[in-house]
Protein backbone atom coordinates (compact mmCIF):
# COMPACT_ATOMS: atom_id res chain seq x y z
CA UNK A 1 0.00 0.00 0.00
CA UNK A 2 1.24 3.43 -0.90
CA UNK A 3 1.65 5.70 2.12
CA UNK A 4 -0.68 8.61 2.17
CA UNK A 5 0.69 12.02 1.29
CA UNK A 6 -0.03 13.29 4.79
CA UNK A 7 2.14 10.63 6.43
CA UNK A 8 5.08 11.43 4.13
CA UNK A 9 4.91 15.11 4.94
CA UNK A 10 4.82 14.43 8.68
CA UNK A 11 7.84 12.11 8.54
CA UNK A 12 9.87 14.70 6.66
CA UNK A 13 8.98 17.38 9.19
CA UNK A 14 10.07 15.23 12.12
CA UNK A 15 13.39 14.47 10.43
CA UNK A 16 13.85 18.08 9.50
CA UNK A 17 13.29 19.03 13.12
CA UNK A 18 16.09 16.74 14.29
CA UNK A 19 18.43 17.82 11.54
CA UNK A 20 17.84 21.44 12.38
CA UNK A 21 19.29 21.13 15.91
CA UNK A 22 20.86 24.49 16.64
CA UNK A 23 23.10 26.29 19.06
CA UNK A 24 22.41 29.23 21.22
CA UNK A 25 25.06 31.63 22.36
CA UNK A 26 24.20 33.51 25.54
CA UNK A 27 26.15 36.66 26.35
CA UNK A 28 25.88 37.88 29.92
CA UNK A 29 26.82 41.33 31.13
CA UNK A 30 26.32 43.04 34.44
CA UNK A 31 24.51 46.37 34.62
CA UNK A 32 27.83 48.19 34.13
CA UNK A 33 28.50 46.34 30.88
CA UNK A 34 31.21 44.05 32.24
CA UNK A 35 31.21 40.35 31.26
CA UNK A 36 29.19 38.25 33.71
CA UNK A 37 31.10 35.09 34.56
CA UNK A 38 29.74 32.32 36.83
CA UNK A 39 26.21 32.84 35.50
CA UNK A 40 24.05 29.88 34.57
CA UNK A 41 22.36 30.14 31.15
CA UNK A 42 19.61 27.61 30.53
CA UNK A 43 16.98 26.97 27.89
CA UNK A 44 13.67 25.27 28.68
CA UNK A 45 11.88 23.75 25.66
CA UNK A 46 8.23 24.75 25.26
CA UNK A 47 5.94 21.81 26.04
CA UNK A 48 8.30 18.88 25.63
CA UNK A 49 9.26 16.89 28.72
CA UNK A 50 13.01 16.45 29.12
CA UNK A 51 14.76 13.10 29.28
CA UNK A 52 16.05 11.93 32.65
CA UNK A 53 19.51 13.16 33.66
CA UNK A 54 22.30 10.66 33.13
CA UNK A 55 25.52 12.12 34.36
CA UNK A 56 26.82 12.58 37.88
CA UNK A 57 28.23 15.96 38.78
CA UNK A 58 31.18 16.66 41.05
CA UNK A 59 31.76 19.55 43.43
CA UNK A 60 35.33 19.15 44.66
CA UNK A 61 36.97 20.70 47.71
CA UNK A 62 40.52 21.76 47.05
CA UNK A 63 42.74 24.08 49.07
CA UNK A 64 39.76 24.87 51.29
CA UNK A 65 37.62 26.09 48.38
CA UNK A 66 34.76 24.51 46.50
CA UNK A 67 35.62 23.81 42.87
CA UNK A 68 33.80 24.89 40.81
CA UNK A 69 32.20 27.96 42.34
CA UNK A 70 29.00 27.48 40.30
CA UNK A 71 27.68 24.12 39.12
CA UNK A 72 24.58 23.61 36.98
CA UNK A 73 22.73 20.29 36.91
CA UNK A 74 19.46 18.95 35.60
CA UNK A 75 16.93 18.14 38.31
CA UNK A 76 17.42 14.59 39.57
CA UNK A 77 21.20 14.64 39.16
CA UNK A 78 23.36 13.03 41.83
CA UNK A 79 26.25 15.20 42.94
CA UNK A 80 29.32 13.88 44.73
CA UNK A 81 31.34 16.06 47.07
CA UNK A 82 34.85 14.59 47.25
CA UNK A 83 37.25 16.17 49.70
CA UNK A 84 40.66 16.46 48.01
CA UNK A 85 42.26 18.19 51.02
CA UNK A 86 44.09 16.41 53.80
CA UNK A 87 41.91 18.10 56.41
CA UNK A 88 38.21 17.64 57.02
CA UNK A 89 35.26 19.60 55.67
CA UNK A 90 31.64 19.76 56.76
CA UNK A 91 29.43 20.62 53.79
CA UNK A 92 25.93 21.96 54.32
CA UNK A 93 23.03 23.69 52.60
CA UNK A 94 20.14 25.60 54.15
CA UNK A 95 18.49 26.24 50.78
CA UNK A 96 14.81 25.18 50.60
CA UNK A 97 15.33 23.24 47.35
CA UNK A 98 17.85 20.95 49.08
CA UNK A 99 18.70 21.01 52.76
CA UNK A 100 21.49 18.62 53.62
CA UNK A 101 24.59 18.15 55.71
CA UNK A 102 27.69 16.02 55.13
CA UNK A 103 29.21 15.98 58.63
CA UNK A 104 33.00 16.24 59.05
CA UNK A 105 34.63 13.95 56.54
CA UNK A 106 37.68 13.36 54.46
CA UNK A 107 37.91 11.48 51.18
CA UNK A 108 34.85 10.73 49.08
CA UNK A 109 31.49 10.40 50.85
CA UNK A 110 29.82 7.03 50.31
CA UNK A 111 26.59 8.50 48.99
CA UNK A 112 26.12 11.30 46.49
CA UNK A 113 23.49 13.97 47.13
CA UNK A 114 20.56 13.82 44.72
CA UNK A 115 19.20 17.24 43.81
CA UNK A 116 15.55 16.37 43.26
CA UNK A 117 13.95 19.81 43.29
CA UNK A 118 14.43 22.73 40.94
CA UNK A 119 16.07 25.67 42.67
CA UNK A 120 19.28 27.45 43.52
CA UNK A 121 21.35 26.03 46.33
CA UNK A 122 24.02 27.72 48.41
CA UNK A 123 26.72 25.44 49.78
CA UNK A 124 28.85 26.22 52.80
CA UNK A 125 31.43 24.53 55.00
CA UNK A 126 30.95 24.62 58.74
CA UNK A 127 34.71 24.59 59.36
CA UNK A 128 35.86 27.15 56.79
CA UNK A 129 33.39 30.01 56.77
CA UNK A 130 34.74 31.51 53.57
CA UNK A 131 33.97 28.36 51.57
CA UNK A 132 30.94 29.00 49.41
CA UNK A 133 29.59 27.57 46.19
CA UNK A 134 26.31 27.27 44.33
CA UNK A 135 24.38 24.53 42.58
CA UNK A 136 21.70 25.54 40.07
CA UNK A 137 19.17 22.71 39.76
CA UNK A 138 17.38 23.18 36.45
CA UNK A 139 14.29 21.69 34.76
CA UNK A 140 16.19 21.14 31.52
CA UNK A 141 19.26 19.35 30.14
CA UNK A 142 20.25 22.47 28.16
CA UNK A 143 22.47 24.70 30.26
CA UNK A 144 25.96 26.03 30.68
CA UNK A 145 27.88 28.20 33.13
CA UNK A 146 29.34 31.33 31.56
CA UNK A 147 33.09 31.57 31.26
CA UNK A 148 35.33 34.48 32.24
CA UNK A 149 34.24 36.32 29.08
CA UNK A 150 30.58 36.13 30.12
CA UNK A 151 29.64 33.72 27.30
CA UNK A 152 27.97 30.32 27.29
CA UNK A 153 27.04 28.17 24.32
CA UNK A 154 24.09 25.79 24.55
CA UNK A 155 24.65 23.15 21.88
CA UNK A 156 22.45 20.56 20.14
CA UNK A 157 19.15 22.17 20.98
CA UNK A 158 16.43 20.38 18.98
CA UNK A 159 14.56 22.88 16.85
CA UNK A 160 11.69 24.51 18.64
CA UNK A 161 10.69 27.29 20.94
CA UNK A 162 12.64 27.88 24.17
CA UNK A 163 12.46 30.09 27.15
CA UNK A 164 15.99 31.17 27.99
CA UNK A 165 16.91 32.40 31.47
CA UNK A 166 20.08 33.36 33.27
CA UNK A 167 20.79 33.00 36.98
CA UNK A 168 23.75 34.35 38.91
CA UNK A 169 24.68 34.02 42.63
CA UNK A 170 24.47 37.81 43.00
CA UNK A 171 21.34 38.31 40.86
CA UNK A 172 18.86 40.84 42.20
CA UNK A 173 15.41 39.28 41.84
CA UNK A 174 14.38 36.12 40.02
CA UNK A 175 15.67 34.87 36.65
CA UNK A 176 12.06 34.68 35.35
CA UNK A 177 11.97 38.47 35.29
CA UNK A 178 14.60 38.52 32.54
CA UNK A 179 13.39 35.48 30.56
CA UNK A 180 13.63 35.66 26.77
CA UNK A 181 11.82 33.52 24.19
CA UNK A 182 13.53 32.28 21.09
CA UNK A 183 12.90 29.93 18.19
CA UNK A 184 15.83 27.63 17.57
CA UNK A 185 16.36 26.13 14.12
CA UNK A 186 19.62 25.35 12.30
CA UNK A 187 22.69 27.48 12.99
CA UNK A 188 23.64 29.57 15.98
CA UNK A 189 21.53 32.27 17.52
CA UNK A 190 22.64 34.76 20.06
CA UNK A 191 20.98 36.37 23.07
CA UNK A 192 22.21 39.14 25.35
CA UNK A 193 21.29 39.30 29.04
CA UNK A 194 22.06 42.29 31.21
CA UNK A 195 21.88 41.27 34.88
CA UNK A 196 21.36 43.58 37.83
CA UNK A 197 23.89 42.26 40.37
CA UNK A 198 24.27 42.80 44.10
CA UNK A 199 27.64 43.55 45.68
CA UNK A 200 29.61 40.37 46.26
CA UNK A 201 30.19 40.26 50.02
CA UNK A 202 31.18 36.64 50.41
CA UNK A 203 33.01 35.74 53.61
CA UNK A 204 36.70 36.52 53.55
CA UNK A 205 39.54 34.11 53.97
CA UNK A 206 42.55 36.37 54.55
CA UNK A 207 43.81 36.87 58.12
CA UNK A 208 42.58 40.01 59.79
CA UNK A 209 39.22 39.85 58.03
CA UNK A 210 37.67 36.70 59.36
CA UNK A 211 35.13 37.05 62.15
CA UNK A 212 33.18 34.57 64.21
CA UNK A 213 36.01 33.77 66.57
CA UNK A 214 37.92 31.91 63.90
CA UNK A 215 41.58 31.37 64.67
Amino acid at each position, binding site marked *: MRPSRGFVVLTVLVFAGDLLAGSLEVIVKDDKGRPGSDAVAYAVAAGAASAAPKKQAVVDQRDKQFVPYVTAVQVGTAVIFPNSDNIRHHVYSFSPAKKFELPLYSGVPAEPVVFDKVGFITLGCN*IHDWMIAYVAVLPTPYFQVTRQDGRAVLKDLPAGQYTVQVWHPALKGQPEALAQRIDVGGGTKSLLFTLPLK*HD*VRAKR*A*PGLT*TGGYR
Partner: protein
Amino acid sequence: MTLSIVLLILFSSFARAEWRFEGETGVVYNSNLSNSDRSADVRDDWAWRSDISAANGLQLTRDLRLNLGADMRGEVWDRFDAFNTIGPGASAGLRYRFGLGRQAPWVLLEDRFGYDRFHDTAQSGYDNVLNFQTGIALSDRIALEGGYAFESFVSPNDFYDRQVHRGNARMVFDVTSSLQVTVGYTYREGDVISYAVPPRPDIARFSIEREDQDEFGQPLRTAYKLLGRTHALSFSIAYQLMKYASVQLGYEYAITTHDPLQYENHLVEANIAVAY
Protein backbone atom coordinates in the same frame (compact mmCIF):
# COMPACT_ATOMS: atom_id res chain seq x y z
CA MET B 1 37.66 4.22 81.05
CA THR B 2 35.99 7.57 80.42
CA LEU B 3 39.38 9.25 80.55
CA SER B 4 40.84 6.90 77.97
CA ILE B 5 37.90 7.58 75.64
CA VAL B 6 38.42 11.33 76.06
CA LEU B 7 42.14 10.89 75.40
CA LEU B 8 41.41 8.78 72.35
CA ILE B 9 39.04 11.43 70.96
CA LEU B 10 41.62 14.16 71.64
CA PHE B 11 44.37 12.11 70.05
CA SER B 12 42.36 11.32 66.93
CA SER B 13 41.39 14.99 66.69
CA PHE B 14 45.05 16.00 66.93
CA ALA B 15 45.93 13.55 64.20
CA ARG B 16 43.50 15.31 61.88
CA ALA B 17 44.13 18.77 63.28
CA GLU B 18 44.25 21.74 61.06
CA TRP B 19 47.18 24.07 61.42
CA ARG B 20 47.12 27.73 60.66
CA PHE B 21 50.24 29.89 60.56
CA GLU B 22 49.93 33.64 60.66
CA GLY B 23 52.31 36.52 60.56
CA GLU B 24 51.56 40.18 61.00
CA THR B 25 53.87 43.13 60.78
CA GLY B 26 53.42 46.85 60.65
CA VAL B 27 53.77 50.18 62.34
CA VAL B 28 51.90 51.76 65.19
CA TYR B 29 51.93 55.39 66.22
CA ASN B 30 50.99 56.47 69.72
CA SER B 31 50.45 60.20 70.14
CA ASN B 32 50.96 59.92 73.88
CA LEU B 33 53.17 56.98 74.74
CA SER B 34 53.86 58.57 78.11
CA ASN B 35 50.14 58.74 79.00
CA SER B 36 50.73 62.30 80.16
CA ASP B 37 48.04 64.84 80.88
CA ARG B 38 50.09 68.01 80.43
CA SER B 39 51.02 68.74 76.86
CA ALA B 40 54.60 69.63 77.87
CA ASP B 41 55.04 66.12 79.29
CA VAL B 42 53.52 64.26 76.33
CA ARG B 43 55.90 62.13 74.28
CA ASP B 44 54.76 60.49 71.09
CA ASP B 45 56.53 57.71 69.24
CA TRP B 46 56.02 55.05 66.64
CA ALA B 47 56.99 51.43 66.69
CA TRP B 48 57.50 48.54 64.39
CA ARG B 49 55.36 45.67 65.64
CA SER B 50 55.36 42.02 64.60
CA ASP B 51 53.49 38.96 65.63
CA ILE B 52 53.80 35.38 64.43
CA SER B 53 51.57 32.55 65.50
CA ALA B 54 50.78 28.91 64.89
CA ALA B 55 47.32 27.70 65.82
CA ASN B 56 45.56 24.45 65.69
CA GLY B 57 41.82 24.17 65.22
CA LEU B 58 40.28 20.99 66.58
CA GLN B 59 36.64 20.48 65.78
CA LEU B 60 35.50 18.47 68.80
CA THR B 61 31.85 18.26 67.79
CA ARG B 62 29.78 19.88 65.06
CA ASP B 63 29.42 23.09 67.07
CA LEU B 64 32.42 23.07 69.39
CA ARG B 65 35.93 23.95 68.34
CA LEU B 66 39.08 23.97 70.43
CA ASN B 67 41.82 26.34 69.29
CA LEU B 68 45.32 25.92 70.65
CA GLY B 69 48.02 28.36 69.70
CA ALA B 70 51.51 29.60 70.32
CA ASP B 71 52.83 32.99 69.34
CA MET B 72 55.73 35.40 69.52
CA ARG B 73 55.26 39.16 69.62
CA GLY B 74 57.66 42.02 69.43
CA GLU B 75 57.68 45.83 69.42
CA VAL B 76 60.55 48.14 68.60
CA TRP B 77 60.03 51.84 69.35
CA ASP B 78 61.77 54.49 67.33
CA ARG B 79 62.89 56.81 70.16
CA PHE B 80 61.91 55.33 73.52
CA ASP B 81 63.55 51.94 73.46
CA ALA B 82 62.74 51.26 77.12
CA PHE B 83 59.38 50.13 75.75
CA ASN B 84 60.85 47.66 73.27
CA THR B 85 59.45 44.29 74.07
CA ILE B 86 59.50 40.72 72.88
CA GLY B 87 57.87 37.63 74.24
CA PRO B 88 56.22 34.29 73.61
CA GLY B 89 52.68 33.29 74.51
CA ALA B 90 50.36 30.33 74.44
CA SER B 91 46.61 30.36 74.10
CA ALA B 92 43.66 28.03 74.34
CA GLY B 93 40.12 28.85 73.31
CA LEU B 94 36.80 27.10 73.03
CA ARG B 95 34.32 28.38 70.50
CA TYR B 96 30.75 27.20 70.51
CA ARG B 97 28.33 27.97 67.71
CA PHE B 98 24.58 27.76 68.19
CA GLY B 99 23.91 25.94 64.96
CA LEU B 100 25.46 25.35 61.61
CA GLY B 101 27.23 27.80 59.38
CA ARG B 102 28.89 31.18 59.50
CA GLN B 103 25.74 33.11 60.39
CA ALA B 104 25.12 31.15 63.59
CA PRO B 105 25.60 33.07 66.86
CA TRP B 106 28.78 32.10 68.67
CA VAL B 107 30.58 32.40 71.99
CA LEU B 108 34.31 32.15 72.57
CA LEU B 109 36.14 31.65 75.84
CA GLU B 110 39.86 32.05 75.45
CA ASP B 111 42.93 32.49 77.57
CA ARG B 112 46.36 33.70 76.51
CA PHE B 113 49.33 33.53 78.79
CA GLY B 114 52.58 35.16 77.79
CA TYR B 115 55.82 36.66 78.94
CA ASP B 116 56.81 40.18 77.91
CA ARG B 117 60.49 40.92 78.14
CA PHE B 118 61.05 44.67 78.10
CA HIS B 119 64.28 46.37 77.13
CA ASP B 120 63.85 48.20 80.42
CA THR B 121 63.89 44.90 82.30
CA ALA B 122 62.16 46.27 85.40
CA GLN B 123 58.96 46.42 83.32
CA SER B 124 59.16 42.76 82.25
CA GLY B 125 56.53 40.33 83.45
CA TYR B 126 53.85 37.76 82.80
CA ASP B 127 50.71 38.70 81.02
CA ASN B 128 47.45 36.78 81.18
CA VAL B 129 44.29 37.69 79.26
CA LEU B 130 41.05 35.88 79.85
CA ASN B 131 38.70 36.77 77.06
CA PHE B 132 35.01 36.11 76.57
CA GLN B 133 33.57 37.14 73.21
CA THR B 134 30.26 36.62 71.50
CA GLY B 135 28.92 37.49 68.10
CA ILE B 136 25.89 37.37 65.89
CA ALA B 137 25.38 38.04 62.20
CA LEU B 138 22.65 40.60 61.59
CA SER B 139 22.71 39.98 57.85
CA ASP B 140 25.11 38.50 55.33
CA ARG B 141 27.18 41.67 55.55
CA ILE B 142 26.82 43.01 59.09
CA ALA B 143 27.96 41.28 62.28
CA LEU B 144 27.85 42.45 65.88
CA GLU B 145 30.52 41.27 68.27
CA GLY B 146 31.23 42.06 71.88
CA GLY B 147 32.67 40.77 75.05
CA TYR B 148 34.61 41.12 78.22
CA ALA B 149 38.27 40.56 78.96
CA PHE B 150 40.29 40.52 82.14
CA GLU B 151 43.95 41.27 81.78
CA SER B 152 46.46 40.70 84.50
CA PHE B 153 50.12 41.64 84.29
CA VAL B 154 52.46 40.36 86.99
CA SER B 155 55.99 41.69 87.26
CA PRO B 156 58.80 40.90 89.71
CA ASN B 157 58.77 44.63 90.27
CA ASP B 158 55.24 44.94 91.57
CA PHE B 159 54.96 48.59 90.60
CA TYR B 160 54.34 47.25 87.09
CA ASP B 161 51.64 44.80 88.19
CA ARG B 162 48.42 45.78 86.47
CA GLN B 163 44.89 44.50 86.36
CA VAL B 164 42.47 45.73 83.73
CA HIS B 165 38.83 44.93 82.96
CA ARG B 166 37.76 45.56 79.39
CA GLY B 167 34.33 45.56 77.79
CA ASN B 168 34.02 45.97 74.07
CA ALA B 169 31.47 46.06 71.28
CA ARG B 170 32.09 46.27 67.58
CA MET B 171 30.22 46.20 64.34
CA VAL B 172 31.78 44.58 61.30
CA PHE B 173 30.63 45.54 57.81
CA ASP B 174 31.52 43.53 54.75
CA VAL B 175 31.57 46.29 52.19
CA THR B 176 32.71 44.22 49.21
CA SER B 177 34.17 40.77 48.71
CA SER B 178 37.57 42.09 49.78
CA LEU B 179 36.87 45.05 52.05
CA GLN B 180 35.83 44.96 55.68
CA VAL B 181 35.15 47.95 57.91
CA THR B 182 34.93 47.74 61.70
CA VAL B 183 33.67 50.34 64.15
CA GLY B 184 34.22 49.64 67.81
CA TYR B 185 33.94 50.94 71.31
CA THR B 186 35.96 49.75 74.30
CA TYR B 187 35.63 50.59 77.95
CA ARG B 188 38.64 49.86 80.12
CA GLU B 189 38.93 50.13 83.85
CA GLY B 190 42.07 49.33 85.70
CA ASP B 191 45.66 50.20 86.39
CA VAL B 192 47.40 52.62 84.07
CA ILE B 193 50.84 54.18 84.27
CA SER B 194 51.06 57.88 83.58
CA TYR B 195 54.37 59.74 83.33
CA ALA B 196 54.69 63.34 84.48
CA VAL B 197 57.44 65.77 85.39
CA PRO B 198 57.20 66.22 89.16
CA PRO B 199 56.18 67.66 91.45
CA ARG B 200 52.54 66.62 90.91
CA PRO B 201 50.85 66.58 94.29
CA ASP B 202 47.51 66.47 92.48
CA ILE B 203 48.28 63.03 91.01
CA ALA B 204 50.36 61.79 93.91
CA ARG B 205 47.29 61.95 96.16
CA PHE B 206 45.63 58.96 94.49
CA SER B 207 48.50 57.06 92.95
CA ILE B 208 51.45 54.86 93.71
CA GLU B 209 54.50 56.65 92.43
CA ARG B 210 57.85 55.56 91.20
CA GLU B 211 60.39 58.35 90.92
CA ASP B 212 63.19 59.27 88.58
CA GLN B 213 62.25 57.37 85.50
CA ASP B 214 64.51 57.92 82.53
CA GLU B 215 62.38 56.12 79.91
CA PHE B 216 61.60 59.49 78.34
CA GLY B 217 64.97 61.12 78.89
CA GLN B 218 65.41 64.53 80.52
CA PRO B 219 63.85 66.00 82.53
CA LEU B 220 63.32 62.85 84.60
CA ARG B 221 59.71 61.94 85.12
CA THR B 222 57.78 60.22 87.79
CA ALA B 223 55.75 57.18 86.85
CA TYR B 224 52.37 57.23 88.58
CA LYS B 225 50.31 54.10 88.73
CA LEU B 226 46.64 54.87 89.15
CA LEU B 227 43.20 53.50 88.53
CA GLY B 228 41.97 54.89 85.23
CA ARG B 229 38.79 54.68 83.24
CA THR B 230 39.20 54.70 79.48
CA HIS B 231 36.65 55.20 76.75
CA ALA B 232 38.02 54.32 73.32
CA LEU B 233 36.44 54.60 69.89
CA SER B 234 38.05 52.76 67.04
CA PHE B 235 37.71 52.48 63.32
CA SER B 236 39.53 50.08 61.06
CA ILE B 237 39.51 48.92 57.50
CA ALA B 238 40.95 45.66 56.25
CA TYR B 239 41.50 44.87 52.64
CA GLN B 240 42.06 41.36 51.34
CA LEU B 241 44.92 41.46 48.84
CA MET B 242 44.68 37.75 48.05
CA LYS B 243 43.37 34.78 49.92
CA TYR B 244 46.43 34.58 52.17
CA ALA B 245 47.18 38.24 52.76
CA SER B 246 45.53 41.45 53.83
CA VAL B 247 46.38 44.99 54.81
CA GLN B 248 44.79 46.75 57.75
CA LEU B 249 44.56 50.38 58.74
CA GLY B 250 43.27 51.32 62.13
CA TYR B 251 42.66 54.37 64.26
CA GLU B 252 41.70 54.61 67.91
CA TYR B 253 40.87 57.62 70.02
CA ALA B 254 41.07 56.97 73.74
CA ILE B 255 40.40 59.23 76.67
CA THR B 256 41.46 58.16 80.14
CA THR B 257 40.36 59.81 83.34
CA HIS B 258 40.86 59.70 87.02
CA ASP B 259 39.42 62.94 88.23
CA PRO B 260 41.03 65.50 87.96
CA LEU B 261 43.66 63.81 85.76
CA GLN B 262 42.74 63.24 82.13
CA TYR B 263 44.82 62.27 79.13
CA GLU B 264 44.21 61.34 75.51
CA ASN B 265 45.81 58.90 73.09
CA HIS B 266 45.53 58.75 69.33
CA LEU B 267 46.68 55.42 67.99
CA VAL B 268 47.27 54.81 64.31
CA GLU B 269 48.16 51.40 63.02
CA ALA B 270 49.06 49.98 59.61
CA ASN B 271 49.63 46.26 59.22
CA ILE B 272 50.12 43.59 56.67
CA ALA B 273 49.00 40.09 57.63
CA VAL B 274 49.70 36.79 55.93
CA ALA B 275 48.40 33.34 56.74
CA TYR B 276 49.10 29.90 55.60
